[in-house]
């Protein structure tokens, strides 16, 4: 097989926002309209959100990404000078230019080639695919693959729903090229539905409707969702790409130990579990305390589960993602217990049983 994860890291900003915090200043929520439910009850029932993290003033995407990357590097034992590729996905660049990936490169003191993928919730799987493609065909050996987003940036303060769904955060993995190994990235199944582009829409603040006083006054720089359409599409697509990638890998669902999904909501993930007839316990779910983190969802979930030693050597994982575009993708991955294989040489030998 191929490229193996030899380190994971994640970062959630310090400030935690509860449903009660949001209810305190929500303009469009009332307990009467919610049939007597509090915001907390409503959110837990409708999408599973309990808390989420917000960046501090002046803190932005590259700051979070840098922290996640540093933690992933520390976990891997790899020195930054040995990283030759940085692939990062975000829709919330620090500045229009340069790319946040470049700022991360500079922060880390790296000379690695950086490339930034402009993708939403499908972004981490997209970035993994880009990193793998470049590693397989262009000779890169060690990549930092990062998903980072400051999603609260798109939240209209007057709308309680997105404020309860979305959070800020970053996750990173260190990917290393291995030869003659049974571990690592196996297959991708990806695609796009551009005709459904208006499901997730930020009307203003970009080239079609540039940033102006009018955009500000009318809240055109906040996002709008077709939530019911998204829900149906997301469950269908996530189910489908999971099945496709498993089949493409020459496996069956019985071989899969863990599903680490992009988390648009707990309800979507649990519906997918039902469709696939897989037990909920197989799904790594962090949404209740992180919210929907777009590109950062999967790598953060991966890192949290990894830190809790959930993955055993040889476990098959599926990472499915669906998101804005609309776009989707899934990847199968055979977990390597890289820490057990270390003999003081970070990730170099991977000589645990079965490697």
């Amino acid at each position, binding site marked *: 097989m191929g490229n193996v994860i030899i380190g994971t890291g994640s970062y959630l900003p310090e400030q935690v926002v509860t449903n009660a915090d949001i209810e305190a200043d929500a303009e469009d929520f009332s307990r009467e309209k919610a049939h007597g439910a509090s915001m907390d009850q409503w959110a837990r029932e409708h999408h599973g959100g309990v808390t989420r993290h917000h960046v501090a003033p002046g803190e932005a995407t590259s700051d979070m990404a840098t922290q996640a990357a540093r933690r992933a590097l520390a976990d891997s034992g790899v020195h930054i000078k040995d990283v030759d590729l940085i692939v990062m996905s975000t829709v919330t660049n620090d500045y229009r230019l*340069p790319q946040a990936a470049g700022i991360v*490169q500079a922060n880390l003191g790296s000379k690695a080639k950086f490339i*930034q993928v*402009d993708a939403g919730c499908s972004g981490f799987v997209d970035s993994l695919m880009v990193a793998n493609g470049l590693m397989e065909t262009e000779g890169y050996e060690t990549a930092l693959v990062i998903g980072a987003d400051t999603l609260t940036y798109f939240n209209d303060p007057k709308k309680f729903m997105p404020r309860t769904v979305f959070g800020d955060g970053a996750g990173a993995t260190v990917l290393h090229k291995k030869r003659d190994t049974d571990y690592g990235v196996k297959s991708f199944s990806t695609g796009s539905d551009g005709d459904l*582009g*208006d499901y997730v829409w930020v009307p203003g603040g970009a080239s079609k409707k*540039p940033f102006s006083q009018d955009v500000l006054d009318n809240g055109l720089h906040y996002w709008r969702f077709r939530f019911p359409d998204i829900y149906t599409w997301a469950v269908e697509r996530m189910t489908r790409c999971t099945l496709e990638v498993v089949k493409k890998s020459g496996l069956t669902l019985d071989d899969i130990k863990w599903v680490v999904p992009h988390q648009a909501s707990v309800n979507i993930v649990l519906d997918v579990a039902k469709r696939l007839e897989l037990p909920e316990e197989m799904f790594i779910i962090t949404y209740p305390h992180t919210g929907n983190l777009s590109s950062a969802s999967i790598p953060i979930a991966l890192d949290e589960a990894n830190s809790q030693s959930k993955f055993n050597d040889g476990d098959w994982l599926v990472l499915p993602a669906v998101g804005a575009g609309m776009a989707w993708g899934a990847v199968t991955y055979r977990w390597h217990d890289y820490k057990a294989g270390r003999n003081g040489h970070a990730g170099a030998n991977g000589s645990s049983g079965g490697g």
Partner: protein
Amino acid sequence: MSAVIIGTGHDLPEQVVTNDELEAMGVGYDRARAGGKSLDEWVMARTGVHLRHRARLGVEGSSDFGTRAAQKALAMAGLKGSDLDLIIMSTYTSDHRAPNSAAIMQDNLDATCKFLQLDGACPGFVDAVILADAMMQFMNVHTALVVSSDITTLYCLPTDFMMMTTFGDGAGAAVLRREPGSPYGVKAHVTGTKGSIGKALWVPGGGTKEPPSFEVLAQGRQYAQWSHKETYAFATEKLAEGIVQVAERAGWSLDEVKWYIPHQAGRNIALDAARNVGQPAEKFIINIDHTGNTSGASIPIAMDEANRAGRFADGDKIILSAMGAGLAWGAVALVWYDPARAAAEGKHP
């Protein structure tokens, strides 16, 4: 490396603005300080931009020009959108944060394939070609569309005559086919990035560090800021370095190279690079006089114009070399494929 270009296209906005028109509008240019020279005289002696095309801001987005450029490239290749296996777009002026321009283009072209959008500026097309080449191989697919579309004028401060005269808007596209072992197509590439000097050419406001606000607008932070000296030096150095390094990787002597298609940052920059690498200026495709610097779109626009003017012959060794915001740079060495000529000589891609 196995991607062969089988179709090119470009699209420029309808609205054209000349230097004289800019000077009349008032863009902060002072003739007295320029020894009495008109803006046009001053600019033609330097970047060489006589006129540029400008999108109708708030009406036209990057996907509009990208779609038309792509349609022309597909037509040349004899293909439809549904024939595509992959779309890779580079832009820093996406129509929206979501959906991105690549999504809108996929829909416009009736394509059903995977799209990826790279957030990048001037080196964007080279990055996208390198990525398309790699991804076609990795995904085991055969036909990719690469598009760069940039509305650079969006970020030009109206009172900065350097920005207002240098930049223009437009889109360029190429259809690539994977042909392993072909004598044609991409033969080598080099690429580099240096994020530590990223603020030499940046757009501070409107992102997550300086979110949209009245203050950002009042201070003009939504416009680009540009360190001219630093970027000029960087541009001439990297344009030349990319050429030399990619030729070496391809195993070519510079004398074998028929054409250089530089990112159109300025006529002066391209001529400086030509001198630096010891190659005749005539080999450099320079069309900036009527396009301005269109960021990532500049190379595919220049390539398409030259292609349709019949400048490229079957088997020509061509080097694309780009440098810009990031800061980043890259170059691609490719062998030109002319279907009619190749067929006549019994050659296949």
